[in-house]
């Protein structure tokens, strides 16, 4: 589904990604871990198409298409969803209105009919149940005045609405208490199918207790320096990132 080859990227003059290789197949969950500043969030942003980052080398193929050539909105329409680490606030625009616009734009792109108000609301109700979000949040301005947990839950709700093929969760666990974390993780798990894939970007192992990965990759200085099964995450938790750092320095 997703094939990243030798990806290099920088922001302004600063080189951040230094040759990432990663392959994600349908149905898989990949965790990307690493210390602060290792390039985790940059990778997520580059995949979603944020303009601040310049890809200097490498390729990214998504469902057989060149992802890097696409505009951010087209990537979304092709099925990439980024759950933001810091979701923005948009005053005056309700989540409902926002989602209706987004969903219909995506449907248009895919040559499907746009949803009328009734079928949209039916769909929404269904998803509200699925991700356990307070419906009153959805009629408020997008993320405005939301708590950290509410923002993250809203991200998962949007993911449920848009049914992406590849979801990238960027530090979704940051700032969440254990209850909120559980609810968010449950939402993600319910959305898993054999046809879609998930990349979980995180600093801590905690989230991976709830969203169990098939693969764990450790990112350091813009490169994947170690890959393994979910046990690798536990090992990291125990030994800390210094263990990886020293291992890399030695090599």
């Amino acid at each position, binding site marked *: 589904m997703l094939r990243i080859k030798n990806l290099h990227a920088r922001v302004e003059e600063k080189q951040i990604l230094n040759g990432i290789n990663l392959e994600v197949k349908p149905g898989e969950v990949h965790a990307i871990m690493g210390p602060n500043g290792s390039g985790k969030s940059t990778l997520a942003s580059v995949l979603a198409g944020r303009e601040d980052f310049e890809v200097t080398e490498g390729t990214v193929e998504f469902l057989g298409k060149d992802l890097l050539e696409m505009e951010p909105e087209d990537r979304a329409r092709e099925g990439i969803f980024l759950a933001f680490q810091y979701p923005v606030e948009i*005053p005056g625009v309700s989540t409902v209105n926002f989602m209706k616009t987004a969903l219909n734009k995506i449907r248009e792109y895919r040559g499907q009919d746009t949803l009328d108000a009734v079928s949209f609301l039916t769909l929404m109700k269904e998803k509200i149940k699925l991700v356990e979000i307070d419906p009153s949040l959805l009629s408020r301005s997008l993320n405005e005045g939301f708590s950290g947990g509410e923002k993250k839950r809203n991200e998962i709700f949007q993911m449920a609405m848009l049914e992406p093929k590849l979801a990238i969760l960027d530090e979704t666990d940051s700032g969440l208490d254990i209850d909120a974390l559980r609810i968010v993780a449950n939402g993600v798990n319910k959305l898993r199918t054999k046809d879609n894939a998930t990349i979980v970007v995180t600093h801590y192992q905690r989230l991976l207790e709830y969203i169990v990965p098939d693969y764990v990759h450790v990112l350091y200085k813009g490169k994947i320096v170690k890959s393994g099964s979910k046990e690798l995450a536990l090992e990291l938790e125990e030994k800390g990132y210094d263990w990886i750092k020293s291992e890399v320095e030695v090599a």
Partner: protein
Amino acid sequence: MSKDNQVLEEFTSKEYEHGWTVNLEADSAPKGLNEDIVRFISAKKNEPEWLLEWRLKAYRHWTTMKEPRWPNVTYPAINYQDIIYYSAPKQKVQPKSLEDVDPELIKTFEKLGISLTEQKRLTGVAVDAVIDSVSVATTFKEKLGELGIIFCSFSEAVREHPELVKKYLGSVVPPNDNYFAALNSAVFSDGSFCYIPKGVKCPMELSTYFRINAANTGQFERTLIVAEEASYVSYLEGCTAPMRDENQLHAAVVELYAMKDAEIKYSTVQNWYPGDKNGKGGIYNFVTKRGLCAGDHSKISWTQVETGSAITWKYPSCILKGDYSSGEFYSVAVTNNFQQADTGTKMIHIGKNSKSRVVSKGISAGKSQNSYRGQVHILKRAENARNFSQCDSLLMGDQCGAHTFPYIDVENKSAHVEHEATTSKIGEDQIFYCLQRGIDEEAAVALIVNGYAKEVLKQLPMEFAVEAQKLLALTLEGSVG
């Protein structure tokens, strides 16, 4: 060229939609202004002697006045002798009903999306259509008449209800109030008149649609709305003009008079021709709008969506004379290209426990300058007056300007006055968030701008809200700062 600039560029090249002209035969006064022209206009309209005298007095006063220079706008001097002060589409007979109206005129309004044919209208909006200087048609007159509501052109009001016109004309905006009000008082040609009797809640929206068609013509209409005790009316005003290279002057006066317990809601969607993208042509919109909350518990509410005009200079105001009276001002002003807007409100608190609320949302793009100018004045006897003002500016691109000039004058210690202002831009992160959800940039900007202006747009009656939203989306889609 960065992407932002590209989109900005696209947006600035957007064309004005209502820029066409119609070949209507017109009956015009010669160019220029003097006492004879004033007499000519008055004679054309078969006015009574007192009104001619009123006009002449205003004219004489005008000649002693100086054009105001304090607004934050610049424009070349206006040659007041180069303007035609009276132009009327030629009609063979005075229309008694819609069937008598020139079909060409009806078509003109249909092109604007305003149907004058009553049976076609489902929304229940009564329309007074004013083209160049005169009212051409008023709909739903009979139905309103049954309730005792008078809704007609100003000239008709002068003929049919002279006692009312005489009593209230100039009572809120005196002829010598300011330069443009004096000019209007001397040469106003038509407009709308509306009277709601005691206890009557007007069952439909009343609306006037203004259109400047003829070249070199100034439009000087006058609107007067009187709401008797415990009555209610919601009134809408819309305007467009053809694209012309030369600037055209629009100097209207609107007077609202609310008695005890009465409420007047006045909404405007102003879409005069703003000039081309190089700043050539466009309407000078110099308008005096003022409401008097004369009685206790009366309420006046102004809502405006300003997207057009080369220059806008207007301050719809409320004089809160009655105790417990209340005034509101909701405004969205959009400027683009070389447009300049200096607009805002005055809330003059005289009555005890009077309250006012101001919500102003400015949006500047292109090379435009957008100013909010407002005054909140709490007079000595206005015990317990309350005001809350919120003035926000949104900038798109780095070549425009946003200015805020609030004057807050408080002479009573029990007053509570709060003013807040912020400046922001559409954040790149906001845009990116929308993009990531599959919403393209143009739709994203429309979404964000409508969200930004929501507090004002929701004040508009349904029919207008839709039009206003479309207008905002049309003029601002894709412009990112």
